[in-house]
């Protein structure tokens, strides 16, 4: 098993070989959402409507009477980052599927706030809204892509990951879509007692992620000690 360079560059880490199975698992992603039968997921049209309502409207009765803050997304553009939306169902209520409700999760990078809105797709109203600080849910594809960009833009880490990629593929790494990546929410408490934990002390209040990265049909890239602070657009290497 040949070590590949990113963490080698940092003085530690070993890479393992991985089979290519599953590399094309997402080949049909992006196809229009379909629903076939009652009780199914939100359709593409419902998802769009839920997000439109959640990002535009004031909270309805029962929710905090907060106008939707302008907010910023993970790239600093106006409007909160849409994390995900899914059909809301009270899991204890057997058989009650008369209303189509959507849970929409947003993250405002301007104020580091997790926003959860319950949208009634029938009436187009926000039924319930909450805003929380210091609470983090898993990152979405847009945030994982941004995290990879932050790593690639980091002078030291970027050089390492490009070297890894070239060593395996003989091609240059120019954009995140050349890599298969997943992410996980990272909190400062996960680094308790770890060397360099001070560098990630804001994680939790800030939205931070760690990545799982592999080269399609190739090996894993060791990113296990890299924490990306998406609220600060900064990557740190700690002693995890």
């Amino acid at each position, binding site marked *: 098993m040949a070590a590949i360079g990113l963490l080698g560059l940092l003085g530690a880490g070993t*890479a393992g070989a991985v089979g290519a199975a599953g590399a094309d698992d997402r080949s049909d992603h992006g196809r229009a959402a379909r629903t076939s039968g009652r009780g199914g997921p939100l359709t593409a049209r419902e998802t769009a409507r839920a997000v439109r309502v959640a990002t535009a409207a004031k909270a309805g009765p029962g929710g905090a009477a907060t106008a939707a803050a302008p907010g910023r997304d993970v790239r600093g553009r106006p409007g909160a980052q849409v994390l995900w939306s899914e059909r809301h169902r009270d899991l204890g209520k057997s058989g009650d599927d008369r209303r189509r409700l959507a849970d929409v999760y947003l993250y405002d990078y301007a104020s580091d706030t997790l926003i959860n809105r319950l949208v009634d797709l029938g009436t187009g109203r926000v039924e319930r809204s909450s805003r929380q600080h210091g609470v983090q849910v898993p990152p979405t594809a847009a945030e994982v892509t941004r995290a990879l960009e932050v790593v690639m833009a980091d002078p030291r880490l970027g050089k390492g990951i490009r070297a890894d990629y070239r060593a395996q593929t003989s091609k240059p790494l120019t954009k995140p879509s050349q890599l298969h990546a*997943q992410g996980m929410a990272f909190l400062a408490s996960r680094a308790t007692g770890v060397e360099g934990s001070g560098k990630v002390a804001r994680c939790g209040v800030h939205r931070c992620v760690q990545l799982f990265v592999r080269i399609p049909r190739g090996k894993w890239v060791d990113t296990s000690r890299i924490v990306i602070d998406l609220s600060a657009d900064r990557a740190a290497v700690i002693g995890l």
Partner: protein
Amino acid sequence: MITTIRRLRHARTAAVVAAILLCAVGLGAAPASPVSPASPVSSAPSAAPTSCSGTYRIDRTMTNGARWQMCWDIRRLTGLVLSDITYTPNRGRPTRVLSSAALAEVHVPYDSGRPRFYDISSIGFGDLELGTLTTLGKRDCPTGELRSFSGHKVLCVETQPREFAYKSAVQKGVLHGDDLVVFSVSEIGWYDYITEWRFADDGSITPREGATGTLSPFQFSDAASGWPTGVGSSRFSENHSHNVFWRLDFDVNGKTANVVEQYDYTGSGTASRSTKLTTLSKETAAELAPMRFWRIKNPTALNTDGHPMSWEIDVRDSDEYRGPEHTEDFTHHDVYVTQYRECEVLAYGGTMPGCATSVDQYVNGEKLKDPVLWVDVGFHHVPRDEDQDPMPTHWQGFRILPRDVTATSQLP
């Protein structure tokens, strides 16, 4: 106050469902009346009502005549969720078992103390875009049927053989049975998790989680916390645990008002054993023990022997991981029984406002009117040479068994 309102709405909904169920099976009697298990197959009751249809509904009649019906859905965090799970015994009538059932956390701490992964609450099992929910193909589901979610085939529904449903020299009979198997797969980092539910023709349910894929390619330690893999003894793959939590919201025979009992059989170094029954009237955190099981019963639904219908929780195979105080209190018990709350979905890492964040905190003295069970099964993985790519699947799970749902064996 909000809780009270929800309770009332919930109770009303359940009552409506129960009424529909009774109508559907042509029963005019009150719920407390014995439920006949002996109706012939030819007059089998119509399907129990469900909140889904089409591709999101699973309805399978087994070879012996038993039938399982349920709905399925995918959630961003917990992945596969089964709901409205209804069992119809062979020659029997439909009976609702669970309102919903899903994973609630997969906690993966490494033996050196780090890293510590929270695969449900920090990564999530149900994201198609990131591929944490895997698109399946015919090779994943060779004899079954693939179901799509948002245009992706992510669920396999198949029937698999089960040896020796019974064999009896006295009855001069033998029956090989079958299981309805429902599963999805989640790629989480270097692991592929198989989230599987087996529903047998004798009414038993086996939730289990398989982990395969790749050992962490980066997590190496020493002889104290690892095992040498590969050539020589210089590279120690690190030992770690997979602590899998399931959330089970029972509605025994369609009613939310269930009672939870713990049974122990006491006696050690003596010839006799005696039954010790503990009724859990308040929220409880409990531990596994030899000769211990729990059951969730509906005291108003009796089988024709006059015994209340119930479902037994049988956990016999767990490494019983216990993490550090304060940060991992949710691992300090094996079974939790909590009063139903809509926002209590995750065993750890809950983010719903106005709600506690982990299952140990959900246990705070509430009276149990609509109990929810949480089961934690741990597997401590000490890697072997054989666990190098591709890592053989290791499984962990437990069993849910009907206890007095029917008055007799309904197998043949």
